[in-house]
């Protein structure tokens, strides 16, 4: 396993678990403290589940970052699924249903430092999150 950068396919429910385990290993390796590791793993769980539920398949990409000597981690969740119709509402937490996409994304926003959603209807979605070690 490379901590610096890599890709993991997500195309089954079990891959949500694999993504969580991989993210934990990477975050621990990069030196995140325990609570931040849990935040990262929780965000990964939400976003990889979204891929599985809404797109069926996709991948998680990771990249180690550094800022002022502090480690960071960028994670991307890429799929070619149906896309998200109202991204602003989802990010604002207005699109939240008990099982829908909204809940996972709204929650993830609380756990990471940066989140960006790049989506096009019928084309796919890329969710990028960044967490900096504190």
């Amino acid at each position, binding site marked *: 396993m490379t901590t610096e950068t890599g890709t993991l396919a997500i195309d089954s429910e079990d891959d949500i678990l694999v993504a969580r385990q991989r993210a934990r290993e990477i975050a621990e390796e990069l030196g995140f403290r325990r609570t931040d590791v849990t935040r990262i793993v*929780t965000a990964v769980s939400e976003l990889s589940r979204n891929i599985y539920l809404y797109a069926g398949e996709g991948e998680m990409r990771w990249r180690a970052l550094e800022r002022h000597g502090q480690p960071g981690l960028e994670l991307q969740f890429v799929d070619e699924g149906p896309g998200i119709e109202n991204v602003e509402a989802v990010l604002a937490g207005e699109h939240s249903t008990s099982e829908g996409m909204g809940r996972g994304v709204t929650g993830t926003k609380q756990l990471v430092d940066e989140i960006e959603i790049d989506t096009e209807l019928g084309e796919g979605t890329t969710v990028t999150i960044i967490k900096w070690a504190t």
Partner: protein
Amino acid sequence: MSPSEQSVVWVRDILLATFPDNPTDKTIERLQEAVLDAMTGRQPTGVILDLSGVETVDSFFARMIAETAQMIDLMGAETIVVGIRPPVAMTAAELGYDLGDVRKARNTDHALDLLGVSNVERDV
């Protein structure tokens, strides 16, 4: 405990369900079913959901816990969630998870105390 393992055991009239450390969605669903199945043949006074091995609780897991507790409540038993670890408590609070009216306890002994199961050894 491996991700596929789960356990539902009786302790007197209490049903004790232990979640594995890194459960898949299916494992969580199966554990919920196992709890309900166990309650088909015998009525517990309380059900303890032990999360002490769990490192991550996301929105799906939280919803399943709340849902399971609601089902148990509908069947007339009380649910107590035990062993929530500090990182899990932190993310759950940050995410605003609502576990409903579910009672929480520090550990299984504390939960058994809350359910009124006395420790015979201790009374000796």
